[in-house]
């Protein structure tokens, strides 16, 4: 599956492309993507962000805006995964709509698998903490990534929240500031982790 974005693509386009790349890494979803043909647009209900996705049997091109030939238009709140999206055109394109819903929601692994994948992507970046302790508060388990010894940064959260930040569905600091996770460490490490988290959400390393 080839997934490309138009030049100078904005964050919503890059983030959507990243989700599709994550789905394309799954063999069953990749097979589905190779069969999909049609134009889908998504637009934000809270601001002006939008993306048009052109599925061409394995060749996928994303660009900013809502194209006039989009058969399916989904209106959603990008900051609230629990908000119900509004879908226009599903009645005319039910199978395409179903397939799109699947590939736009890439499957996730356990929080440990997602944390390890993020660490493999981010660990070598300059100024990253050398050791990251991840504590799952509802399971009572933890995982240290990187070097042994005292961790330079700790992230505490529920399994679902840890999956969200490490899979690239949300950004570490946004969730920290919103009280969804807890952290222990320096401003330097928090900032650099945020940079890698943003890059991960936008598809770097995918």
């Amino acid at each position, binding site marked *: 599956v080839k997934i490309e974005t138009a030049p100078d693509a*904005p964050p919503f386009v890059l983030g959507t492309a990243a989700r599709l790349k994550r789905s394309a890494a799954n063999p069953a979803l990749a097979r589905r993507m190779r069969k999909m043909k049609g134009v889908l647009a998504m637009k934000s209900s809270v601001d002006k962000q939008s993306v048009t996705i052109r599925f061409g049997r394995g060749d996928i091109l994303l660009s900013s805006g809502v194209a006039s030939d989009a058969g399916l238009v989904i209106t959603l709140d990008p900051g609230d995964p629990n908000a119900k999206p509004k879908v226009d055109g599903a009645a005319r394109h039910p199978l395409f709509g179903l397939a799109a819903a699947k590939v736009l929601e890439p499957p996730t692994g356990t929080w440990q698998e997602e944390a390890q994948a993020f660490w493999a992507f981010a660990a070598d970046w300059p100024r990253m903490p050398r050791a990251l302790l991840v504590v799952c508060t509802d399971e009572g388990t933890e995982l240290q990534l990187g070097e042994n010894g005292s961790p330079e940064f700790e992230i505490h959260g529920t399994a679902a929240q840890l999956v969200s930040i490490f899979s690239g569905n949300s950004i570490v600091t946004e969730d920290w500031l919103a009280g969804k996770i807890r952290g222990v460490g320096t401003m330097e490490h928090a900032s650099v982790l945020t940079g890698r988290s943003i890059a991960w959400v936008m598809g770097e390393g995918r």
Partner: protein
Amino acid sequence: LSDRLDPHITMVRTEGSVPDGPLVGKYLSRDKFERSLPLGPALADFAFAYDLAGTPQLGWWADWRQPFLGDVHQRPDLDTLVEIRPQVASCIVDFVSPDGEPLPVCPRSVLKGAIERLSANGFEARVACEVEGMVFTESYDEARAKGYRDLSPLGTDRALAYLTHDAYRQRPLLEEVARRLDAMGVAWEAWSAEAAPGQFEINLPATDPVTAADTVARVRTVCREVAVDNGLSVTFMAKPRDAYGSGMHIHHSLLKDGAPAFYDESSPDKRSDVMRRWIGGLIATMPAAHAFLTPTINSYRRMVGFAAAPLVISWGEDNKSTALRTISRSAKLARIEHRVGAGDLNPYLGIAAILAGGIVGLEQGIEPPDELRALAWGMPERFPHLPTTITQTADALERDKAFADAMGPVMVEHWIHTRRWEWMMYHTTGGDPDADAVTDWELNRYFELM
């Protein structure tokens, strides 16, 4: 200090530029100001780490920052002490670390670094800036209540420059600005109404680069303060409404041993080798320097053909459509007018970027492309165009290592990150990626701070 400060002064306002352009500082009692010397008062280093909406900028780090949000100091430049109102003085500062080291992202220190490097090459620079802004009859509070839309320009509603009738109507702002500058001892040369409704231009005299930048900062401050005092509003946004945008043309020349270095009587075109290489450097580094000259999302809206802003990387003798307008007809006048700068640029960084580009040309002996003897708007793509988005420009800045070396690598790295941050904030906090005119996001973010 008693030699520099009249006895009746009771408080001193410190003010220093952060990279985005606004001045930050404190009002200090005279006693506290004196006791704070030489390091100056402290403020949180966060002043350099949040954006114009007050959002902490996260995603990168640099050695000048402290791990748990520490202090930086505002080291006063006592040569800049001036009385701004009865009993109140102002002092421009350089930002330094707690141990007195210049902060590598302090715009004024970055400019000083470029001047030092130019001096090591045997030259000193003279710089004169044109400050353009727009004034409206609504107060800032009234403008904010209207979302900065549908404001009434002070003056005529015609796109005609230099109208003295228009200037007369702008007197409540500009005559008072001139009076206050005179009282402060800040030199200015001329002011006039400009091409957009409510637009004005203030011409400042040629001087050393730091004084030139200090003066721009002070002129903008005085404009805003006169506006506040008179129930008006002023903005130096590059494009606050659908009309001619505001730029900042930066005239500059070099001296060697006190003599003009851009002029050569024996050369057929009267341009010296120094000027030629300086132009070569400015042209070669222009995509990177563009990041500092065109700093905001809104700056790019000014880049419209046939509307004064240059679009093509080019130079030409007395050509006001090219990016660089050279004037070579006499030793006294020989200079370059750099016309790329947007009205919202940080004067310290804008001037530093120009010096850095020229320095690259001098040090590498870069020959300029042919002079463009044509109108530089509406040209086909084979002519090299300036980047048209903030991300394209950040990419160009990231690629140009020679420019970064002359400008200051830490500042350049900071700027690349913050320009990409500005792009991300525009898209994720309410900006319209498909808008072809100024958005509410831009007006809310920039109108009162630029």
